[in-house]
C-alpha cells in the first residue's frame, strides 16, 4: 500500500496552481515538499487528504489509512491536554494517548487546560494527535511552525519512529528537520501555466 500521485492538477479559489504533479511514497519513506509561499503546497496536501477534489489526475491513497494535520491544530481550549488526545483516540479507535504524550514530552502538562499552553506546546499537542491516530500515512502541513529546536528534534524522532514501523509521511516544510533519509520534492517545477478554466458555475454562483 503506497501513496502514489499521478499527473495531479490542483486549484485554489478556481485558479489552477499546480499541474502534472507526480510522486510516490513507499512504506518507511518520507517525502518533504518544498517551494516558495503561495506555490500551492497546502492546496496539494488538502487534495491528497481528500478535503478538496483534484482538477485532474488521481491520488492513489487509501484514505482509511491516512491522518491529516493542517495549519490549525484543532485543539479545544477548554479541554485538558489529555482530554483532547482521548477524544481523537476514541474517534480513531486507538489507545495510544500515553505514547503520544511521551513522544512530545507532554506528560507533565497532561492535566493542564489546552487553552493555557504556549504556541509551541499547542503545536506539540497537535503533532501528538498524529501519533494517537495510529494511521500509517501522515499528511502534514507546516508541522514545525512555532516549534523550538528541541521540539523540532522531538518531531523528527517521532517521524523516524513512525517510518520505522512501516509508516509513510508527506510533509510540507521550509526548515531542515534533520531527517537525512527523507526525499525532498520541489513543487515549484509543477507551477500551473494554463489560464483559469472557464468556470460557468463558479461565475454563476
Amino acid at each position, binding site marked *: 500500500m503506497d501513496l502514489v500521485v499521478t499527473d495531479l492538477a490542483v486549484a485554489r479559489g478556481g485558479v489552477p496552481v499546480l499541474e502534472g504533479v507526480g510522486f510516490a511514497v513507499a512504506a518507511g519513506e518520507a517525502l518533504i515538499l518544498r517551494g516558495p509561499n503561495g506555490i500551492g503546497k497546502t492546496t496539494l496536501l*488538502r487534495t491528497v*487528504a*481528500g*478535503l*478538496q*477534489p483534484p482538477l485532474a489526475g488521481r491520488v492513489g491513497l487509501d*484514505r*482509511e489509512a*491516512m*491522518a*491529516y*494535520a*493542517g*495549519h*490549525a*491544530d*484543532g*485543539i*479545544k*481550549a*477548554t*479541554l485538558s491536554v489529555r*482530554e483532547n488526545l*482521548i*477524544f*481523537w483516540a*476514541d*474517534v*480513531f*479507535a486507538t489507545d495510544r494517548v500515553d505514547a503520544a504524550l511521551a513522544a512530545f514530552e507532554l506528560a507533565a502538562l497532561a492535566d493542564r487546560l489546552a487553552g493555557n499552553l504556549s504556541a509551541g506546546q499547542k503545536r506539540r499537542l497537535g503533532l501528538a*494527535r498524529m501519533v494517537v491516530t495510529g494511521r500509517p500515512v501522515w499528511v502534514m502541513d507546516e508541522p514545525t511552525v512555532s516549534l523550538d529546536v528541541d521540539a523540532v528534534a522531538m518531531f523528527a524522532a517521532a517521524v523516524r519512529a513512525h517510518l520505522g514501523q512501516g509508516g509513510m509521511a508527506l510533509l510540507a516544510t521550509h526548515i531542515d528537520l534533520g531527517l537525512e533519509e527523507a526525499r525532498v520534492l520541489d513543487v515549484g517545477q509543477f507551477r500551473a501555466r494554463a489560464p483559469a478554466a472557464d468556470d460557468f458555475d463558479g461565475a454563476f454562483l
Partner: protein
Amino acid sequence: MKALLIRDLRLGTRAGGGFGLGLAFFLIVVVLVPFGVGPETGRLSVIAPGILWLGALLACLLSLDRIFALDWEDGSLDLLATSPLPMEAAVSVKALAHWLTTGLPLVLAAPVLGILLSLPAQGYVPLILSLLLGTPALSVVGTFGAALTVGLKRGGLLLSLLVLPLYVPTLIFGAEAARRGAEGMDNTTPLVMLAGITCGTIALLPFASAAVLRVNLR
C-alpha cells in the same frame, strides 16, 4: 460517535460554551412580554402558548452559529472530515448535542416560565409535549443552516435569515398544538404533524448538511 457527543456536551457545559445563554434569553423574552402587552392575566393566558413557543425558537436560534463555527476556526472540522467518522454521523451527533444543551433545557424551563404568563393548568402537558416533539427539528434544521454558513465571517445574521423561514412549519404546528391544549381542545392532529416534520428533518437533513459541509471545506 459517542466520543464526539461527549466532547461536544463537555465543551457546551464548560466556560464559554454558551450553555446558559439560550435559557437566559428565553427567560428575558418571556419576562418582557407582560411589559409589552400589559399584565392582564386573561390576555396573557391567551397568548402564553404562542409566546413560549416563539421564545424557545428564538433562544434556539441564538446558539446555532456555534455548532460548526468554533470547530471551523480551530481546524477541528478539517480533522473530523479526514477522520474515520462519516460526515453524516458527525453532523447528526452535532445536532443531537445542540438539542441536549439547548433544546432540552428550554423544554424543561418552559413550564416554569408558563407560570409567569399564567398559562392555564391544562396547558402544561400539551406545551411540554409539543416542545419535546418540535425542538429536535429546530436543532436539525439549524445544523443545516450552520453548515451552509460555516466559514463566512459574521455569518450569524445570514444564518438567521436562512433558518427562520425553515422554522415556520414547526412553529405553526407546535404553537397550534400548545394553544389547543391550553384551551382544552383535542390537539392530536397538530402533534402528529409536528412529529412528522421532526422525523422527516432528522431522516433527510443530515445528508444535506454533510454534503454542504464537504463543499464548504474545500
